[in-house]
């Protein structure tokens, strides 16, 4: 087999990643801006009101992308922390540390927007329902990861302990996803990916897809900036940082 692994080694190298992230971040930022602007126009203005939920359904355009990113972010956190734990890769720990606050903020948004959607539809801001409770647990897992990674005097011990916690907590992600199927949940079922087709009208679906794409691009742009910051903090004594400073 003659597969080249150089790209992987280059990604794992902090100076290379630092420069690459700095170059890519603005592109993702612009992509996010365009998709979110289109999604907001389509979702708040163009799409007709829902036949059951009226204009209240429009919260979907921020709730679904946030909830999706909360789970995506946690998966990324656990996978990169796991890679850092097993292969002792510095970059992987930096990615995990960078994704944690970002993922936590989208988990917070999923909970807040869901709560503001739940009040008019279910009559309550909060219920100890399977979907809602497992999402709240996810928020606490993010907090636990951040707290534990900073709880040790030696940051490397903190990283390792937090990585183990992150991997154990990964079971919550499928629980959140399937909670509406496994339990008789108050939360409505899946909107977009039901069976072969989708359950939603095109004029409502397209803005949702635009918002999901836009939020994802936004997440990537912010993540790249956070990784840059994280790498710089960890490597500030390294020789390559001086070169980067001269470029900047």
């Amino acid at each position, binding site marked *: 087999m003659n597969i080249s692994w150089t790209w992987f080694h280059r990604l794992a190298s902090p100076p290379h990643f630092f420069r690459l992230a700095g170059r890519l971040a603005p592109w993702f930022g612009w992509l996010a801006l365009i998709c979110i602007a289109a999604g907001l126009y389509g979702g708040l203005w163009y799409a007709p009101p829902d036949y059951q939920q009226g204009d209240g359904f429009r919260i979907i355009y921020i709730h679904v992308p946030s909830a999706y990113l909360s789970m995506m972010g946690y998966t990324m956190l656990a996978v990169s922390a796991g890679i850092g734990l097993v292969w002792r890769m510095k970059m992987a720990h930096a990615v995990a540390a960078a994704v944690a606050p970002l993922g936590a903020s989208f988990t917070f948004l999923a909970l807040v927007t869901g709560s503001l959607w739940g009040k008019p539809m279910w009559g309550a801001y909060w219920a100890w329902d399977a979907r809602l409770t497992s999402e709240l647990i996810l928020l606490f897992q993010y907090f636990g990861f951040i707290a534990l990674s900073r709880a040790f005097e030696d940051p490397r011990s903190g990283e390792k302990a937090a990585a183990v916690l992150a991997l154990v907590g990964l079971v919550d992600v499928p629980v959140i996803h399937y909670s509406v199927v496994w339990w008789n949940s108050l939360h409505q079922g899946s909107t977009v990916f039901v069976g072969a087709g989708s359950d939603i009208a095109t004029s409502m679906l397209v803005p949702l897809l635009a918002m999901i794409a836009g939020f994802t691009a936004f997440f990537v742009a912010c993540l790249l900036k956070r990784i*840059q910051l994280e790498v710089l903090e960890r490597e500030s004594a390294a020789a390559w940082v001086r070169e980067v400073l001269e470029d900047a």
Partner: protein
Amino acid sequence: MKSLHEFLIMGGYAAYVWPAYGVTAVVMLVNALLPSLRLRRRIAELKRRADGGERS
């Protein structure tokens, strides 16, 4: 074509829809600005330190 007024009252759901969008906008803006600001400040600080180190 719907009117601006209709848009703003959101069919009676304005009290839920607009706060949801408002909180999201604030949280996303903070996420967008904070790392860039911190990065810029950190780079400036490291530069200052490097310049100082060369002089002494």
